């Protein structure tokens, strides 16, 4: 397979996993939690690197999940001590992130683990770093990781679809029906963490937030059905990823930045033109209502 094909496949996988997870992020009103986790995952990666001295799949994933869950737990804990939710997030993620950056700057050295790289992602290097898998053959490591992540994400979303739905919509009812709301919360945070870390190589820590939130927010403007919203969000994620790649190639700039930017463009289009909740249609509807009430009066 060609070099660009691998990049496009990798980017699409990022778009799909992030798109699916993002839907529940925004429905659970936890968009900023994605921002927090995407930062603290860096600490998990750094610690995994310091312990194993390798930047490879399994330890990195474990480090990321631990860091993500630790973030979720600390935020929840501070919030329970009545610190505003957003302030708790702000305290936890900046602190853990700062510790990560300090560890990189002081003990890791820039040779193996580069903050810049972790923050920006470098999808152009992905096709060079391959592994050989049985049956599939040689594929880039990051792509394999993303494929596995997508599988895990899809599995959990499909298997617990109705539980995600009820715990997002009405956690009190879910709890009274005996669904373990807190466990589902941490499971979800775990899914956000692995999606984030798997997307790190491709889009970096901050742009992954764009891929998580924006396609889902766009989809939220197009439909009132959860299942359609998931499909649309995944689709928008893929479109943003691929469009971002071509924009970057066209004006020769950062691919991950362009992907975030493309997802933003897609949102603006949805924001203005969506037939259901877009600005234009809302405007037209309100005008229509005004006109018809006028005629009624007349």
């Amino acid at each position: 397979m060609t070099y660009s094909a691998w990049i496009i496949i990798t980017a699409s996988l990022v778009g799909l996993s992030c798109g699916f997870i993002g839907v529940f992020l925004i429905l659970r009103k936890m968009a900023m939690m994605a921002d927090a986790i995407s930062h603290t995952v860096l600490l998990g990666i750094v610690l995994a690197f310091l312990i194993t001295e390798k930047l490879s799949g399994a330890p990195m994933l474990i480090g990321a999940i631990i860091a993500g869950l630790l973030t979720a737990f600390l935020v929840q804990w501070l919030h329970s001590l009545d610190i505003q939710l957003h302030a708790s997030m702000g305290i936890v993620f900046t602190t853990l992130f700062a510790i990560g950056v300090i560890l990189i700057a002081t003990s890791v050295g820039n040779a193996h683990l580069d903050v810049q790289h972790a923050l920006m992602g470098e999808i152009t290097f992905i096709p060079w770093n391959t592994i050989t898998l049985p049956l599939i053959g040689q594929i880039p490591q990051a792509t394999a990781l993303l494929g596995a992540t997508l599988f895990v994400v899809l599995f959990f979303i499909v298997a617990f679809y109705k539980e995600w739905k009820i715990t997002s919509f009405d956690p009190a009812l879910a709890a009274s029906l005996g669904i373990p709301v807190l466990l589902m919360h941490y499971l979800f945070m775990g899914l956000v963490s692995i999606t984030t870390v798997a997307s790190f190589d491709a889009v970096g820590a901050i742009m992954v937030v764009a891929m998580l939130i924006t396609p889902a927010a766009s989809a939220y403007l197009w439909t009132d059905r959860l299942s359609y919203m998931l499909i649309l969000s995944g689709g928008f994620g893929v479109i943003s990823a691929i469009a971002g790649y071509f924009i970057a190639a066209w004006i020769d700039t950062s691919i991950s930045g362009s992907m975030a930017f493309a997802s933003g463009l897609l949102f603006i289009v949805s924001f203005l033109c969506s037939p259901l909740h877009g600005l234009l249609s809302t405007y037209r509807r309100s005008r229509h209502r005004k006109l018809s009430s006028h005629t009624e009066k007349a």
Partner: protein
Amino acid sequence: MWSILLSSNTQWVLASTIILGIAAGLVGSIAYWKKQSLMSDALAHASLPGVVISFLLIGEKNLLILILGAAGSALAGSLFIQWVQSSTRITEDTAMGMVLSIFYGLGIMLLTIANRTAGGNQSGLDSFIFGQAASMVRFDVFTMLGLACLVILVVCLGFKEWKLYLFDASFAKGTGLSLTFMNILYTAVLVTTIVIGIQAVGVILIAALLIIPAVSARYWTHSFRWMLVLAAVFGGASGGIGTFISALGSGWPTGPFIVVTAASFFTISLIFGKERGILVRYIQYKLHQKEVHVRKVNTHPEAKGAK
């Protein structure tokens, strides 16, 4: 180790981060009561494209111009958040996350281009991401000091107006205080603090300097006045100590050290704080439980309400 302190450049840098910390503590307290803690994070990220665009336009690194650019794009970001959240069913939380990441993505796109063009690498624009206080030249320091002092002045002079505005906006309106004006003033001091902070602390971590000292201060006092004072002290101390530590190593970023210092103050406050610190709270809870228990025994538990 102490020789670093003697260098006059370090002294100036230290002074500017201390003043920055004080300003951030004050403005952060206001942001906390406006329940907009993470707004500073979103706006800081949103300022990146403005910084790069103004650099690309004038072709050199002039802090004042970069700050103007940063302020412009941060304001654009805040307006966009307002607009999306008021005209659709998308919540503020989501809108903030989008603005944060999309603007930042745009900033990175432009930064890559700026670094590619001649002289871009010397621009030191990269230091805007993590902050490099040591890289500031004298002019930058003066700009920062001046603006930070202005922010402090605005907060202190308008103390009672801020108090009214935060705690009882409708009453404030009744007394003839213009809420629109206060909103604009608030946005102005917030954005100013953020953009002067990104040079020293960086776009990613400046939010910490606004959030952490303010929350720490809450653990020591119930009075708004003392909260402001304490937040300023915590902020200033974090700025100073963090900068000092980062100056000990070569090429160590300033921002993370400032944040970790602030976080240490927070941890101490969280545990030992005299108002609702964990220790105090635990003791209160135990006393309370005992009290309820005692009362229960005293009142003799007959099924008094039941028929």
